[in-house]
């Protein structure tokens, strides 16, 4: 009788162990492979045209609240995907960099090919994060 209970306990324990370990280890593998990455061509655009306002050193509080490129990889998955969606919408609308900024710094305007590059990257990143 006590042997049976012991066997049952061991079975239950091992079940719990595997349930506890397996999914989270799989998840962490998936998570690591989708951490937001900036390929060279994307980083070049961000550095040239976005980072001035969207970085901790910026004086533009609104821009900092909205998006910090360096912080993006540290956000949780839902937030990262949301930010990608935001970036895509902004690119589609052509609302960034804002008109106000372009008046004084017209050289910051995104070219069509830059918009394309950024959009493709944001869409691919969102898709990867959703998998």
């Amino acid at each position, binding site marked *: 009788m006590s042997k049976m209970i012991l066997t049952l306990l061991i079975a239950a324990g091992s079940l719990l162990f595997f349930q506890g370990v397996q999914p989270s280890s799989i998840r962490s593998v998936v998570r690591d492979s989708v951490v937001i990455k900036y390929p060279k061509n994307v980083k070049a655009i961000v550095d040239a045209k976005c980072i001035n306002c969207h970085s901790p050193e910026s004086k533009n509080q609104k821009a900092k609240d909205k998006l910090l490129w360096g912080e993006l990889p540290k956000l949780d*998955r839902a937030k990262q995907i949301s930010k990608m969606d935001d970036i895509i919408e902004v690119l589609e609308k052509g609302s960034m960099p804002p008109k106000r900024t372009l008046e004084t710094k017209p050289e910051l305007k995104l070219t069509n090919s830059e918009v394309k590059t950024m959009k493709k990257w944001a869409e691919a990143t969102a898709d990867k994060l959703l998998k």
Partner: protein
Amino acid sequence: MKRKLKAVIGLILLVVVIIQFIANKLPENKPLNSNSDIIASGLATGEIARILKNSCYDCHSNQVKYPWYSYVAPVSWLVINDVEEGRKELNFSEWSEYPKRRMLRKMEDVGEQMEKKEMPLPIYTFIHRSASLSENDRTLIKDWAKNLSSKILNE
């Protein structure tokens, strides 16, 4: 004095009549699409559905209830603008047509709005007293938005 007052009132009335002929068309409603509507498709039920209908659907859906005065300028101008903007920002009637990334962002936004209390717009709740959200309503909506987010994430 009396004549002056009459003239002023007459003038105001005349202006009110004239402005009725300025672009005045309220955004059209569409028939309920039970596949794409967030309530009809079963993603918002019970108390959540009631709150959404009662406090959000008059701008954020294709099923806007227009009271008689919303047809009268200048109120109509305000209503036209708010409904157009509201639908563009988030349309619960077209929920299922959003890509997943947008669904997640909209649910984040909903949660944020519940905390910041910018929604429903004060001018709306001033007229529709019953649409203002209690603390409990806000918590319910916030939790619902969070749950829906994790559901979308884990699909």
